[in-house]
């Protein structure tokens, strides 16, 4: 069996049909879509088609609401900075404690520039504190920005409802939907969501292409000014091959939406159940009743995530971890900490994220491989003895410093 890729929340394999659709735009269809001649014209039509394909996937009312950017991060930055520049009298933003760094680092930076950032917390299952959110909405808030689905646990936030609440309070609403688009049905026309970010490489399109959805008549200030591309809202010559690729990927994602929510979901459930049935002191993190169909995040107590990943990798299985060591920082994932996952488990979380390319035989193999890896690392752990953790690990292991 070849390598098994269960890290689709990090990035996905570009669909071969997508690559095929892109190829002509590197060769004979090299024109600039802004040009007046036929070289440009055909390319311009291809961009128009891709825009419509994305529009359909996210259920936007108008194709002009789709702005192509270079990535999800650019879309996030554009949205949040636009809200602040368009409403300079508003000096606050609301977000959650579990956002992707694309939003959290920006928020932290804005704090240094004098803005007030409200970070709404989550409960032990990663569910947003809606009362706290409501209490922070005011005329001082420029934008509320909440992820649609969490990249680590897959937990879904009720962003449609939250956008309604923001709208009632006169606050703009942005959602980082990088993990949700292509996995959950989305119909933006029927929501009050003002801005949405998506990223191509999370849905089998290439890296280097993203979209900012901007609801018509939402006040907007561009991040990049220059040429008239994207109606002057995102200057810079279009990345045509990637735009064409994203268009087709959006169409394919829509075709596979039911498959994702039935077959992929079933395989994910089997994977989680198969592992938890065999491994003691392990549990699924996040809101297992409301999460992405492709994601299972499992915490293995008393062992460390990077060590698990290295052994999985040796067996040809790719996953990811929220452990401190995988990022080179000293703290485990901010998402695990926000959920109050104890340190005994937070360092040992492993995220398995599937895609429509995942096969049943692969899931079976992972279920076989994981338990012995966990057992092997626990055998090395000073917190573990025999087949269970030490009764009082804090006392049994008493370092002269901590």
């Amino acid at each position, binding site marked *: 069996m070849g390598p098994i890729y269960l890290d689709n929340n990090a990035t996905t394999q570009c669909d071969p049909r997508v690559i095929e659709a892109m190829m002509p735009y590197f060769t004979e269809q090299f024109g600039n879509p802004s040009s007046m001649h036929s070289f440009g014209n055909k390319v311009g039509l291809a961009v128009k088609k891709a825009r419509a394909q994305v529009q359909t996937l996210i259920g936007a009312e108008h194709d002009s609401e789709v702005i192509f950017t270079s990535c999800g991060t650019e879309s996030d930055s554009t949205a949040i900075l636009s809200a602040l520049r368009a409403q300079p009298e508003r000096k606050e933003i609301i977000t959650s404690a579990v956002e992707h760094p694309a939003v959290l680092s920006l928020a932290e930076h804005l704090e240094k520039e004098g803005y007030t950032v409200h970070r709404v917390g989550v409960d032990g299952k990663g569910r947003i504190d809606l009362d706290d959110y409501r209490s922070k909405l005011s005329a001082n808030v420029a934008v509320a920005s909440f992820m649609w689905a969490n990249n680590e646990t897959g937990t879904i936030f009720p962003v449609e409802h939250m956008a309604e609440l923001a709208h009632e309070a006169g606050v703009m609403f942005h959602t980082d939907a990088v993990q949700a688009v292509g996995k959950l049905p989305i119909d933006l026309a029927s929501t009050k969501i003002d801005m949405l970010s998506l990223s191509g490489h999370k849905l089998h399109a290439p890296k280097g292409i993203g979209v900012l959805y901007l609801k018509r008549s939402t006040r907007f200030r561009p991040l990049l000014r220059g040429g008239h591309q994207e109606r002057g809202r995102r200057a810079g010559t279009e990345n045509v091959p990637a735009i064409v690729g994203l268009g087709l990927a959006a169409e394919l994602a829509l075709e596979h939406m039911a498959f994702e929510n039935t077959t992929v979901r079933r395989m994910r459930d089997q994977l989680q159940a198969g592992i938890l049935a065999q491994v003691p002191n392990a549990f699924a993190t996040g809101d297992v009743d409301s999460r992405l169909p492709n994601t299972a995040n499992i915490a293995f107590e008393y062992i460390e995530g990077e*060590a698990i990943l290295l052994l999985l990798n040796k067996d040809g299985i790719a996953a990811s971890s929220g452990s401190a060591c995988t990022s080179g920082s*000293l703290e485990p994932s901010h998402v695990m900490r926000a959920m109050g996952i104890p340190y*005994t488990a937070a360092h040992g979380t492993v995220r398995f994220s599937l895609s429509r390319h995942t096969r049943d035989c692969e899931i079976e193999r992972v279920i076989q491989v994981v338990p012995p890896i966990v057992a092997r690392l626990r055998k090395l752990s000073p*917190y573990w003895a025999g087949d269970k953790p030490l009764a009082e690990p804090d006392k049994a*292991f008493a*370092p002269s410093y*901590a």
Partner: protein
Amino acid sequence: MWDYSEKVKEHFYNPRNAGPLDGANGIGDVGSISCGDALRLMLKVDPDSERILDAHFQTFGCGSAIASSSALTEIVKGMTLDEALGVSNQDIADYLDGLPPEKMHCSVMGREALQAAVANYRGETWSDDHEEGALVCKCFAIDAVLIEDTIRANQLSTVEDVTNYTKAGGGCAACHEGIEEILARVLAERGESFDPTAKATPAPAMGNLARIRKIEQTIEQIRPTLQRDRGDIELIDVDGNKIFVSLKGACSGCQMEAVTLGGVQQKLIEALGEFVKVVPVGAHAHARDGACATEA
């Protein structure tokens, strides 16, 4: 993915001396589960000769923490306690053919466990005086706590000062924003504000002669290690922050040449307290690229 050496991977996949040790009479526990790594080193020491007869470990941690623990037990077996106390974290890293800068703390933890285990055997209490913060400078593995403490202790006020005293920021320079933030915070504590145009306080300058002597001395200290592997190193010239050396014998053209040069450069930087670049001269000057790679 981390760029782990084959030796790190080998020690992680097949750790030596793992698990509890019966009859251990020196036990050192360091780290904690909240920090993400914890190590218990168990030594069986012969009371007459103070020689380490056996060493085992138990580790909660990442791949390099487990590999460092495994390497440590292999290094100290057969040593006397005093010899073992001479083992530095760099020795552990060198034994593993190097560790990524983000992972150097794993080797530090190994050395601390060793000190704790020896103290435990001797009935002494060992306390750690080293607190670790978030990694700021990835080129030289310098963390925020060290930078803050150094700024306070020496009343530093510029990024250049920080680089002169700690090496942080002396490589790729990507961490200068982070260093500026720390400076701004610490300067605010003493009622000053950070001025990016301020001139660096001149570093405690070493005279030219003292500096060259120090370089010679450091290289002399390294030579026995290389000679053991039938290699050698010679100082050719010093020009500003460039130190030209020639690798001889088995070292010359050895696949590990770049690693060796990186180690020599690190030792020289530590001895001189300034950033220097070690440049090989002679037939194998191409290894220069390798030496640079260790700094970025």
